[in-house]
């Protein structure tokens, strides 16, 4: 029982990432009708916002210590980040919390990137076939990945969670298991809660604001909304920006779980596409639930008991599920009838 709980917990953080990326993908598809193969790259760019902020904060100057010597007898060199020098304790606090702080930086940056991408490239592809949309965004994904590689190198760059969230939560105790039976890294819990919060705010935004109402109407029938005198194109540009922000935030917070590298875009893209397809193209609830579902299933498949029964299942489970879903229920778990069914 505690093993099952542990696997469910393990799947939640990855599931949260899948859900956030898939949410953006499916919003873009539902509103703009564009298949965006560069969405994984947006996730990666978000992650590198965190990396960039951290290295920006850590820009340091070197002083020679008057008292301490290193092993060669030379004066010990001490690196002090400017930010600590200027702001003292607040500076070190900022460095410590660079990953959460990067959220503040990522929101405007990703919004800008998203809007630029939509205005500069995607809007020319609304009327072109899906195949060409896939190809051009695939090209863009390669370009973005390579640019990041040029600036940050090809190796993964580990990021640390804030001190407070570095430990483990003994989750089992709360539910009456033995202490130590269900240990869970605190940051993963934070990530899960964070993803829930982001998903909740996106849903609330679409559900309870006038803007969201127009967007939902546009998803249902773009033309009629346009006929009512609403500039739907401009709204959709912002929607694209929001989807980029959601993917970017997912990336920022994921950095302490897995060190980011430029290849993330491609890795997560394929998986989150599968998530969208399983959930149903254009279905928001479907994307979220399929994201968590697949994350949890993946973590179950990597249990040793399962692996000894079905060797290799952990490697292919997600794709296998996608194939089965596409064959028996092509509109996905929660897709609307008639939307992209063929």
């Amino acid at each position: 029982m505690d093993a099952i709980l542990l696997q469910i917990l393990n799947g939640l953080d990855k599931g949260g990432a899948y859900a956030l990326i898939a949410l953006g993908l499916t919003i873009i598809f539902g509103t703009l009708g564009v298949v965006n193969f560069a969405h994984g790259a947006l996730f990666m760019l978000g992650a590198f916002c965190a990396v960039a902020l951290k290295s920006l904060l850590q820009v340091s100057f070197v002083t020679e210590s008057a008292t301490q010597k290193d092993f060669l007898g030379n004066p010990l060199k001490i690196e002090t980040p400017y930010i600590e020098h200027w702001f003292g304790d607040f500076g070190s606090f900022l460095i410590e919390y660079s990953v959460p702080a990067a959220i503040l930086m990522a929101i405007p940056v990703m919004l800008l990137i998203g809007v630029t991408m939509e205005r500069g490239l995607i809007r020319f592809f609304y009327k072109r076939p899906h195949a060409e949309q896939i190809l051009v965004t695939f090209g863009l994904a390669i370009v973005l990945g390579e640019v990041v590689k040029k600036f940050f190198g090809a190796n993964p760059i580990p990021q640390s969670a804030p001190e407070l969230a570095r430990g483990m939560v003994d989750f089992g105790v709360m539910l009456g298991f033995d202490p130590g039976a269900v240990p869970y890294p605190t940051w993963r819990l934070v990530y899960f809660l964070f993803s829930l919060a982001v998903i909740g705010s996106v849903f609330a935004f679409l559900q309870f604001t006038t803007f969201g109402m127009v967007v939902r109407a546009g998803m249902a029938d773009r033309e009629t909304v346009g006929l009512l005198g609403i500039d739907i194109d401009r709204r959709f540009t912002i929607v694209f920006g929001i989807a980029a922000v959601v993917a970017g935030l997912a990336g920022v917070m994921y950095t302490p779980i897995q060190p980011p590298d430029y290849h993330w875009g491609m890795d997560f893209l394929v998986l989150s596409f599968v998530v969208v397809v399983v959930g149903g193209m254009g279905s928001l609830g479907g994307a979220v639930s399929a994201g968590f579902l697949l994350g949890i299933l993946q973590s179950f498949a990597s249990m040793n008991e399962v692996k000894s029964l079905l060797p290799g299942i952990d490697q292919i489970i997600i794709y296998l599920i996608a194939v089965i879903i596409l064959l028996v229920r092509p509109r996905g778990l929660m897709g609307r009838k008639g939307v992209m069914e063929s």
Partner: protein
Amino acid sequence: MTASKTTSSSDLILLACFAAAVMAGPVILAPFGAGYPDLLQKFAIFGIFAIGFNILFGLTGYLSFGHAAFLGAGSYTAVWTFKLFSMNPIPAIIMATAFGGVFALVIGFISLRRSGIYFSILTLAFAQMSYNLAYSVLTPITNGETGLQLVQTDPRWLDTTVFGRDYGSTLPSSDLFGITMTGYSGFYFCAVMLIICFYISMRIFRSPFGLMLRAVKTNQNRLNYTGVNTRPYTLAAFVISGMYAGLAGGLMAVTDPLAGAERMQWTASGEVVLMTILGGTGTLLGPVIGAGAIKYFENIFSAYNDTTLMNIFSFLPEGLQTGVVNILGLFVGDGWHLTLGALFMLIVIFLPGGLMEGVNRLVNWATARFKNKDDGAPTPEPAAS
């Protein structure tokens, strides 16, 4: 594309020109610094791969993102044929082609139940599954990350029992009845295969079967409404292109007996899509040209680094020189993939018909100019491809 009348005689001329150009490849390409066998082999092999992909994508419009799986499978089959049966490349490529076909039959049978982007994702999913499995569970067959290699103790059953050949203590390389498959002989082996493949693809393009595939691309619904079951046609196209990919993978193993799972990765599938699009989707020559262009520029661009660039631009004033080099340096050497991605985007945005469309546009433009000058003079029809 111009649907002009194409007689079999003009096709024969095209084939003859193509064959002559391929055979003379080492001479023609020498001035461009590409006249050496390793690169020429790549041209031919990826040409075959792209021709095969074009039979599926160009004719039926089904965009497969998993064709690298067949390429990788072909490579593994060929290396296993070397290990178990004979170092002769002919059984190896026959087995590779056949296995590529069978593999494509299985995947195509399932994937073709859907179309559009769902088809792309299904093929992508299958390719990723094959890739992941090749790295993990199938390690006894694929040798995992190390890659499948020949070893001295391989049985090579046909060689030892039928031909009575003993390689002694040397690690054998593949040879066609005594001709080693490296260097120019390897290239010519691939070149002959390329010409055969080109001929077959040409026949498919001109056949009623090819017409049916084009009809699928144009309007599959209408075909279905008229009572045609399109599935067998698309499946046949999928299997044929899978066989081409298997053959290409087999040839890779022939020229260099080593097979690794990275050939199956989905970025490799993306590369062949790019080759086809760059050359011109749905044209005969386009994919070969696209494959050649990409492999050529990959080779050229990867060779540059900042120092060579500095030398090239040494005539510029110092500040300008470093500026230019810094910008260009992004695109060469390790940054070759950046160029590839940018090229990909540019082609899709501005020239969806690929280089062949560009050439046709130029020819049309030139003929129009020509017509205006000498009024009414007979103008040569642009070469249909």
